[in-house]
Structure formats: structure tokens, C-alpha cells
């Protein structure tokens, strides 16, 4: 933030450092091990009195000198140039901390240079002992220069106590100093052998060639075991999080780690194979192949070390984008554009969002991400996002997957960055969100004669909306299956809830009889739920028409699992199809009463906002293949599953086969977080600090401008509450679920997701009341104390949960046995609801039985069931106070 950013784009993201550094260390470590190789080979030549060996040694020394002095030394300087250009702040920190250590290293360089010059040019001219002494001096100086630089490099990964003390000795002799020194020394010896293969393979005399090759093979192979041991030691000394990254928490590192392991084996075998007698014409190119493998070997190690250090360039001190860790909070408060120096667009306006976004990109992203280049190319990584998705992605980076820093800056700056990426890099136009036009579907209200009709049939969908995931060929989270409840009341002064002698039947609206033609659930039901279902029949055995079953305890009839979908045979999308319900006398077959109710169902789940793709059906609803595959791809990547492979093999999985879920009575793997806790617990990180229902609307079809608009009951429409009034903000909502799981013993999994989330409606996590999803929900009486009007508009039902499932609004009854929903309507569609597809589409029974959309019996209309007025509040207190929330101006 202190320095200007060099806009590299294609060759950005650390490319130059990676290229120059890997080739440098490959030669530099050879410069160390090869030094020992020279003097010991010379000694061997004297010992065996071999002119051949000495000649070879001298030639090898020339090769050594030319390679290490020129290419080795200058690429070392090259690293310094590159890091100064791409990470000047980190470079400055290192320079100012270790200046005299580098000065010491410089002395060793100077002595090395002179030593190798003297060694080579006096080879054969100087007295043997003295010449070997020069060789030894070279090696000592070379190793000492490794000693010095090793301290500095190791410091970057494990600054150790320096973070607290600022003491340079703590910095230099840091936790990974010694293991890294040993590790690098052993690799240096191995490289001596590998390079030795190259020069040995050029020996003309075949016997001598084979002898020297075998000699070099010892250099390659003998240190390997020690290398591996010191590798374990090294890994154990690395900071906890970095170690976890290297061992797989960062998926990007996994291939390099695997490569290192495989290459260890290949090098061992390669060295052995190379020792077998073969013609020179084979050995010469093979030596180069092995050398190249050595380069990959060295490269994979250095890559692991660098990548394991993420998100820092200096661990826990400075992030990879050169932002000091201590500045994060201030940047979030004041903004990066304010605090960084080399910024043109300090103030954000409508016009400069993209330019400002570009500057923010330069400051925070470009140090690791190239554009259209080989390193972490940002283009494919962000291609799927629109503006909202990109902003949300930025909201969440660096929290759960902490190999990245978090975004730092104000909300507006984050949005500016999203603008830049979406509009500039991807050239997408930002579309104004337009409310969706929905047709009004004609329907009529079933007839009711208050003077003559004997029965009142009340029927309702237990949930205000049943969402389904219609991407069954990839995965299923919510298979189709609405649940209808019904209560039949025989009208009288003292009405009776009829339980015997009747059959309640249902039949879905015409055109909706073939859900299997519209969603792939039945094609994959065997894979998803383990049962080959007949088409259009759900797991509970119900089809698109059938009978309710009596539930004695609830005194109600239930049809559970009607697999309705919002797609009609004529191509219409209708999230509120009707289900006709009839009560029939069991003995006579006479129809006692009929009504209908919506079975709300929608596939308008907002996964595509972040997972890419478009709506599956007519561009309006449904989870497309592109979206669904992205979900699986990421789930596999993050959780090491193989869901995509399975889906592609025709065996898609139901999420709840692993994640327990009370909704589907799924036990899953009890060690995993339950489905709601997992879903919300993960996604909350990308949707923090949102106002009102914004976060909910991102995934649930609850946005009034959406096709479905599921929250349409009196509270959402007439009273103008939003989801957060009852459910809390997304952070609060999520914490109730995660805390529930945490207290059940899933401390690691839940804890990991809770770490970065703060409650907003209560002061701390301690005050969050845990809950089991679907069984514990907000309760009406929290706000409607004693069934009365709430104290104010600002009451909240959050954080007060029922103890038993039977106390839920959707499962509770009044003192008389009438279920609450029978009179008041389904959750989220309480009477009077407002339906996009026809004003009173949800209010059929109130309209049918009383001509008004309010609760059954509202406005003292007890006659609906009692055939006369009543003056005793038998069902619940306050019912004779009259309806407060009338339609139209109050």
C-alpha cells in the first residue's frame, strides 16, 4: 500500500519471482553441494592416483564455475530485483531487519568467487594439499552463504518469537531455520550428483564413464534418506496453519506435495537406472532428463514452501499483497483508497467505480493473481460471477479458506472491485434488476353456503413454500414432496372435528399430474434415495392424487409427500398450483365438503448468483447443469468428495445422505454438521453485514421482485416485517444452528465455521440460544404475548425457541383441537396473504367460508363453524378483539 503497483497482468501473480527463484535455487544449491563434490572427487583422484579422475574434476570445475558464477550468481541478484519490484514493502522489511546478515553473506560470496577462480585456474599447478584446501574453503564459504540466506528465507515462513520481541536473533534463528538448513544441505548434495551425471555422461571412455556415473549416483542417492527425514523435521517445525495448508488444506498445494513424493521415488529409481551400463548415446540425453527432473523436484519443494506461507509473505506480519497485518482493521474502517499512497481515485463516485476497482485490484489481488497468465489467472476464477455474486465472493474470501487474505476496505470499495472484475475484466454489462412480471392465473373460489352446508373443510400446505432442487441429475437437496394438512369440521353450536367415517382426498390442479416429465428426480431416485420410485409417486407412496391419512394425535388428516413441481405440462411456470381437497363420507360416498389450497413449490433457489449459470427453465427458475456442476466441483475440492464423478456416472447423491437433516428424517453421517447448519454455516461468510432480508433473498426465493416471492403473509406484506424480525440476520440465524451442533459435540466442524462470524442482534455468542433446525423455530407468542398485539413494530422473535417440536406453529393446536394453521394459514402465507399470481390465491378458504381474506372466524365471524356468534374466547385469548390488519387504507 506504500508503493506503486507494477501492472503486469499476464506475467503477474508472482511469475517472475517463481521463474527466477526456482532456476536460481536449482543452480545455487548445486553451487554448494557441487563444491564438496569437487574437493572430494579431487581427493579421490589423488587417492586412486588417477589422472582420469583429476582431468574429469578439472573439467567439471570449469563447468561448475561457468554455471554458478554467471547464471547462479546473477539469478540470485535477479530474485532480489524481482522481489523489489513485486513486493517492495516485504523486501524493505527484510532488508532493514537483516542488512548486516546480508552483508555477512556478501563476504562469503566474495570469498567464494575468489576461491573458485583460484581453484579452477590453479588446478594442476598448485601443490595438492594447498589446492584441496582452496576447494574446502570454497565449500565452507558456499555453505556459510547458504547458512545466511537460509535464516532469512526461513524467517519469512516462521518468524517465531520475533513477532513478539522484534529481536533479530529470534528472527534469524527461527523455528524452521535448522531443519531447513539440513534439508537444503542434503538437497545440495543430491544435486551435486545430478549435475555430476551430466558431466560424467560426456566422458568418452565408457568404463571410466560408468565408474564416475556410479560415483555420482552415490551422491544422488545416499543423501535422499536424510533428506526425507529432515523433511519430516522441517514440516513439524512449520507454523500450524502453514503445515495444514501444505498437508492439504490448500488444494492448490496438493499436486506439488504429491509431485515431491513421487519425484523422490523417481529420482531414486532414476539414479539406480542411470547406474546401469548403457551406451553414451543414451546416457547423455538421459542425464539431462534426470537433471530436468531435479529441477522439478527442487521447484516442487520451493513451491510448497512459498504456497504454504499463504496468505502471508512474512508470516502473521505481512500479507502476500504487502498489507501489514496490523493495518487490516484500520483499512476496513477508513478504506484502502484512503490509506494507500499511490491511488488516483481516492473518493468513490458513480463514474469511477471501475477505475477505483482497478486500483484496488492492483493493491490487493495482483500480487498473486495474473490475468490471462499462468499463475492463478483471475479470469477463469471469476468468470461465473455477476456483480452481486462477485461482491459476495469478495465478502467471504480469506475467512474459511485462509490461504488468501480477506478483502480489506469499505463495502463500497469491495463493490468497486467487483465492478472492475465483472465489467472491465469480463466485459459484462451490469443489468438493472427489474421486477419480474408475473401473470395472474385465473381461479375461482369453491362455493360455500353458510345456511345449508354442514361441513367446513380446512386444508393447507404446512409450509408457506416448499422449495425443490430440480438438478437431480447432479444432486438433490430438496426432493419434491409437499405436505398437506386437513381438518374437517362439522358445523354446529359446538362443532366437531370429524375424524371417523370420512375419507379426505386430494387431487392436483390439472396440468400438474406429471412432475416426472419436468424434473429428473424419478430418473435418479434409486441413486438419490435408494428406492426406484414409480413415476410421479413420492417416497411416502403418494402421487398427484390420493388420500389423506388420519393423525389421531393432531386430530388432523395429513397427506405427506405430494411430489408437486412448479412446472405445468403446458409449459407454464406456476409456483402456486392448487390441490383440490374433498371430504367424502366413507360409507355413502357423499361429498361432504370440498375446497382447495395452494401447494406452493419453487425451484427459484439463488445458487447461480455465485455458482454461475442461468436459470434452467425458460430463463426464469430452476438450477441449471452449469450451476449444479459448479456446486459439486467446489464441494469436491473443499471437502475431498467425489460427487461430480458420481453424478457423471449417473449416480447423483442426496445431500442428506451425508448431512443429517430433520426435514427429511435423515440421519446421514452423525459426525457431519446437519444440512441447515452446514449450508448456512458455510455460505454466511459470503453474505455478512447485509441489511434486512438481503442475505436471505440471495438464496431463498423471498425477494418481492422474484418470480416466487415466498414471504407473502400478513407479516411480510401488511406489517412490512422481513425475515430478520423472526429469524435474525443471517449471522445470527447461522450461529443458532452452529451453536446447536457445537453443543452436540461437533466442536471442530462447527467451531471452524463460527470463528469468523459475529452475532448482530445479541451482544455475544454466549447469548445465542442454540437450536435444532426444523424442530425449533421462532414462535408467534414471543411477539404476540398472550396472543395480543406486539408491544411495538420493532419486536423480534429471534433467539426464543420452542422446546418441543409439537409446539411449532405448524404443529400446534388451540384449546379445542383446531390446528393454528387451519384458521390462520400456512407459515409465511398467513391470512391475509398477498399472492403474485392472484391476490387471494393463498386465501381461498377465508374467501370461501366468509368472503374475507382474514383468519377463519375473524371479525367475530364465529358462525363459519359455530353457525352463530360466540362470546367466549375458547380457541385463544384476544380472538374477539377484531381484525387489526385489514386490507386497504386503515
Amino acid at each position: 500500500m506504500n508503493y506503486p503497483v507494477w501492472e503486469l497482468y499476464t506475467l503477474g501473480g508472482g511469475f517472475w519471482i517463481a521463474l527466477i527463484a526456482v532456476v536460481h535455487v536449482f543452480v545455487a544449491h548445486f553451487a554448494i553441494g557441487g563444491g564438496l563434490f569437487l574437493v572430494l572427487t579431487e581427493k579421490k583422484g589423488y587417492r586412486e592416483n588417477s589422472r582420469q579422475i583429476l582431468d574429469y574434476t578439472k573439467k567439471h570445475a570449469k563447468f561448475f564455475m561457468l554455471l554458478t558464477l554467471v547464471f547462479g550468481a546473477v539469478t540470485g541478484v535477479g530474485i532480489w530485483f524481482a522481489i523489489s519490484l513485486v513486493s517492495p514493502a516485504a523486501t524493505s522489511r527484510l532488508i532493514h531487519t537483516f542488512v548486516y546478515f546480508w552483508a555477512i553473506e556478501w563476504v562469503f560470496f566474495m570469498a567464494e568467487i575468489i576461491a573458485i577462480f583460484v581453484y579452477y585456474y590453479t588446478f594442476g599447478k598448485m601443490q595438492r594439499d594447498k589446492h584441496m584446501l582452496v576447494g574446502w574453503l570454497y565449500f565452507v564459504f558456499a555453505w556459510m552463504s547458504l547458512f545466511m540466506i537460509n535464516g532469512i528465507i526461513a524467517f519469512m515462513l516462521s518468524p517465531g518469537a520475533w513477532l513478539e520481541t522484534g529481536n533479530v536473533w529470534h528472527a534469524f534463528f527461527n523455528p524452521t531455520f535448522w531443519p531447513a538448513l539440513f534439508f537444503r544441505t542434503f538437497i545440495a548434495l543430491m544435486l551435486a550428483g545430478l549435475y555430476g551425471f551430466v558431466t560424467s555422461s560426456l566422458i568418452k571412455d565408457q568404463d571410466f564413464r560408468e565408474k564416475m556415473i556410479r560415483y555420482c549416483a552415490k551422491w544422488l542417492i545416499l543423501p535422499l534418506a536424510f533428506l526425507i527425514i529432515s523433511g519430516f523435521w522441517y514440516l513439524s517445525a512449520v507454523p500450524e496453519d502453514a503445515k495444514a495448508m501444505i498437508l492439504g488444506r490448500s488444494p492448490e498445494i496438493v499436486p506439488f506435495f504429491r509431485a515431491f513424493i513421487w519425484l523422490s521415488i523417481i529420482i531414486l529409481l532414476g539414479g539406480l537406472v542411470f547406474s546401469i551400463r548403457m551406451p553414451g548415446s543414451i546416457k547423455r540425453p538421459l542425464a539431462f532428463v534426470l537433471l530436468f527432473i531435479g529441477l522439478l523436484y527442487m521447484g516442487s519443494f520451493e513451491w510448497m514452501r512459498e504456497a504454504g506461507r499463504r496468505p502471508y509473505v512474512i508470516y502473521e506480519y505481512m500479507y502476500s499483497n504487502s498489507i501489514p497485518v496490523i493495518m487490516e482493521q484500520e483499512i476496513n474502517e477508513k478504506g484502502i483508497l484512503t490509506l494507500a499512497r499511490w491511488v488516483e481515485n481516492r473518493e468513490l463516485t458513480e463514474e469511477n467505480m471501475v477505475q477505483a476497482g482497478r486500483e484496488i485490484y492492483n493493491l490487493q489481488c495482483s500480487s498473486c493473481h495474473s490475468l490471462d497468465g499462468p499463475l492463478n489467472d483471475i479470469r477463469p476464477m471469476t468468470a461465473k460471477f455477476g456483480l452481486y455474486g462477485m461482491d459476495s465472493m469478495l465478502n467471504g474470501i480469506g475467512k474459511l479458506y485462509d490461504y488468501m487474505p480477506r478483502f480489506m476496505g469499505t463495502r463500497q470499495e469491495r463493490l468497486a472491485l467487483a465492478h472492475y472484475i465483472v465489467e472491465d475484466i469480463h466485459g459484462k454489462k451490469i443489468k438493472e434488476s427489474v421486477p419480474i412480471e408475473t401473470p395472474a392465473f385465473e381461479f375461482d373460489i369453491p362455493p360455500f353456503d353458510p345456511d345449508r352446508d354442514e361441513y367446513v373443510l380446512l386444508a393447507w400446505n404446512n409450509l408457506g413454500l416448499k422449495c425443490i432442487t430440480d438438478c437431480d441429475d447432479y444432486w438433490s437437496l430438496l426432493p419434491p414432496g409437499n405436505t398437506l394438512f386437513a381438518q374437517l369440521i362439522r358445523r354446529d353450536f359446538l362443532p366437531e372435528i370429524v375424524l371417523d367415517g370420512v375419507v379426505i382426498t386430494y387431487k392436483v390442479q390439472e396440468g400438474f399430474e406429471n412432475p416426472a416429465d419436468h424434473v429428473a428426480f424419478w430418473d435418479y431416485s434409486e441413486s438419490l434415495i435408494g428406492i426406484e420410485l414409480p413415476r410421479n409417486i413420492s417416497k411416502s407412496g403418494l402421487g398427484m392424487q390420493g388420500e389423506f391419512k388420519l393423525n389421531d394425535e393432531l386430530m388432523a388428516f395429513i397427506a405427506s409427500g405430494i411430489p408437486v413441481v412448479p412446472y405445468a405440462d403446458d409449459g407454464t411456470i406456476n409456483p402456486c398450483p392448487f390441490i383440490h381437497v374433498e371430504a367424502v363420507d366413507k360409507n355413502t360416498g357423499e361429498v361432504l365438503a370440498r375446497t382447495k389450497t395452494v401447494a406452493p413449490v419453487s425451484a427459484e433457489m439463488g445458487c447461480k448468483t455465485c455458482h454461475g449459470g442461468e436459470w434452467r427453465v425458460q430463463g426464469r427458475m430452476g438450477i441449471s447443469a452449469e450451476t449444479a456442476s459448479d456446486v459439486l466441483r467446489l464441494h469436491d475440492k473443499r471437502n475431498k468428495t467425489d460427487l461430480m464423478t458420481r453424478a457423471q456416472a449417473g449416480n447423483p447423491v442426496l445431500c442428506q445422505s451425508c448431512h443429517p437433516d430433520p426435514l427429511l428424517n435423515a440421519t446421514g453421517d452423525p459426525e457431519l454438521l446437519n444440512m441447515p447448519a452446514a449450508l448456512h454455516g458455510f455460505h454466511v461468510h459470503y453474505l455478512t453485514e447485509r441489511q434486512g432480508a438481503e442475505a436471505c433473498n440471495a438464496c431463498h426465493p423471498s425477494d418481492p421482485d422474484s418470480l416466487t416471492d415466498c414471504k407473502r403473509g400478513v407479516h411480510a406484506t401488511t406489517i412490512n416485517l422481513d425475515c430478520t424480525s423472526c429469524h435474525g440476520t443471517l449471522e445470527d440465524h447461522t450461529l443458532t444452528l452452529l451453536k446447536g451442533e457445537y453443543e452436540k459435540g461437533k466442536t471442530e466442524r462447527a467451531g471452524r465455521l463460527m470463528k469468523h462470524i459475529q452475532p448482530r442482534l445479541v451482544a455475544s455468542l454466549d447469548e445465542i440460544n442454540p437450536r435444532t433446525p426444523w424442530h425449533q423455530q421462532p414462535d408467534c407468542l414471543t411477539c404476540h404475548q398472550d396472543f395480543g398485539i406486539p408491544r411495538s413494530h420493532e419486536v423480534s422473535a429471534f433467539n426464543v425457541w420452542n422446546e418441543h417440536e409439537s409446539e411449532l406453529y405448524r404443529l400446534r393446536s388451540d384449546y379445542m383441537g383446531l390446528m393454528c394453521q387451519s384458521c390462520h394459514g400456512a407459515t409465511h402465507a398467513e391470512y391475509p396473504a398477498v399472492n403474485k399470481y392472484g391476490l387471494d390465491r393463498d386465501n381461498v378458504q377465508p374467501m370461501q367460508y366468509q368472503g374475507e381474506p382474514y383468519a377463519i372466524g375473524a371479525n367475530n365471524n364465529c358462525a363459519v363453524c359455530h353457525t352463530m356468534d360466540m362470546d367466549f374466547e375458547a380457541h385463544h385469548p384476544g380472538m374477539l378483539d377484531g381484525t387489526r390488519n385489514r386490507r386497504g387504507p386503515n
Partner: protein
Amino acid sequence: MDPSGLIPVADSIPTHWGWFYFFLILTFILHLLLMNTMLGTGIISLVRHIKKSNAPCPVCKDISIKLPYKIAFTINFGVAPLLFLQVLYGQFHYVSSIMMGVYWLSVVGILIIMYYSAYIYDFKYDQWPGLRLYFLALMVVLALVIAFFFSNNMTIMLNPEKWTGYFDNRSGTMLNFGDPTLIPRYLHFVVASIAVGGLFMAITWKFKQDPEATLYIDQGMNWFSYATLVQIGVGLWFLISLPQEIMLLFMGGSTLHTGIFLLGLLGVTMILVFGFKKMVWPTTAGLVLTVTFMVLMRDLVRNAYLAQYYHPSERTVVPEYAPLFIFLVVFILGLGAVAYMLKLAFEAGKEA
């Protein structure tokens, strides 16, 4: 935009700034002398080759053998002042490096090619009498290119007012052609190299028992003297191209500045006289003195440019002296080891 808002915050330093200043000046002087020798002898050799076609050139042969050493030590003594420069002036130097990032980074590749070119010139001197010229020429040209990039970097870093140019070009391709001091500064170093190259040639042949030695010594001293004459012109050009208020410091405005300048001029006069008189050792002594004063003057120019923004003495010191002392001890031991190895080499050369 106020340039001082662009100057990055500097990190603290571990010892009194005087130490770094001392090391910076000292190692830069050594680097300069080595660089001058490398480039100068390269140029002289090139001119001789071109003049003589492919005729034998013992001077060139001798230069070819030594060129790789000179490059090695120029680099080795180049990283030292670069280190101390970054300690004291890093906040300026990193910025200028970034603004010309493409060129700055290309120095690495150019240097490798240049260095190998010199080795080819050296190792193939006898086998490739025709081709060797091209490798030498390549080396010289690349060295001149590198020097040009350095001059750009060193001047951009002194002009925070120019830094707003970054907002028009963030691709790292900025050069400093708009600065009137760039070319005279650059030439001042190049012409100096020719002079020092000639002197080195003279020194070399002072040690050789060769019938032509006297001729070569003379020729070397001629190179030196005439180049130094030209240097005076270039130096004056450099001086008057400086911003006026800085130039005036050296022309009476400040005792210190003018004093150093005069000492430098005195040195130049001395070496001109000694040079034309072909007095090799006095010239050498005088040259080292003159270069010292010139480097001090260059540093005064640097601080004058940055005076309104910064002086190294204002750096915060968070003391950590032990590494300095260890460095000094290691340095002395290192020098000892080096001296010992050279002694062994010299003796071996004698014996061989």
C-alpha cells in the same frame, strides 16, 4: 498532487545511519572503479580489434583473460552498495525501480548474456579470431545498456515530482528522458570508464616483462588523459544540467558542497598532469582520490535533490548492533582468507 504524499514510509534502521552511509560510499567507490575497469578495457579492446582487423593484439588478449574476473567483481561489489542504498533510500529506489520495472528486471537477463559473452570472448579468443569481436561488442553494448538503465533508475528516484507519471504509465516502461541530467550523468560514467580502462591497461603492462610494454603503457595513459579531458567537459555539462539551486550549492552556495567540488577539481587537475606525464602510480593514487570526491559529490547531489523530503539522518534507529560487529569480524576474517588464497594462487602461478 503533492509528491511527498507518494513517498513511502521508511522502515527503521538497526544502527546509526552513518554506518550505512560509510558502507554505501565505500562500496560504491570500489564498484565504480571495478565497473570502469570492466567497461573501459572492454571498449579499448573493441576499438583496438576494429582498428587492427584480426591482427594479433596482446593488449586485447590480456584484457580478454581478465574480463570475466572484472565482471564477477563488479557484480559482487555492485550488490553491496545496492544493499546499503536500499537501507537508506529504499523508499525512493523501489519506487523508481517499479516505474521502470520492465527495463530494471531485464537487467538480469541482459547481464547474464553480457557475462557469458565475455566468457566466450575469453575462452574462444584464440580459436575464433573473426567471431570474437562480436562477442566483445555484444558485451560492451549490453554493459552500456545496463548502465543506461541504472542512470535512469538513479535519476527517477531523485525526482518525486516526476512520480505522478506513474498514473499515466503503470506498465513499468517509464524512462527519464525528460530529465536534462540523464544523458550527461550517463556519459560521465561511460567516459570515466574509458579513462580508467586506459589507466588499468597502463598498470597491467607495468607488471609485464614485454618488449612492447612501454608502448602499451603509453597508449593506456593516452586513453586515460584524453578521456579525462573529455570527462571535464561532460562533467561540466552534468553540473550545469542540474537544477539551478543544486548547481549553485557547488558554486559557492555551500561551503561543504563547493569544497568537495573544488577538491574534486583539484584531483582532476592532478591526474591530468600526471596522466599526460605518463606517471602511472601517481595517476592511480590521484584517480582513487578524485573518484572518492566525485562519489561524495554525487551523494551531496542526491541529498540536495531530496532535501525537501528526506535526509538519512532522520531515520528511526531501533538499535541492534551485534550483527554489525559480527559482520565486521567476518569481513576481516574473509579478507584474511581471500588474501591467503590469492597468496597461494600467486605462488602456484610462480611455480608453474
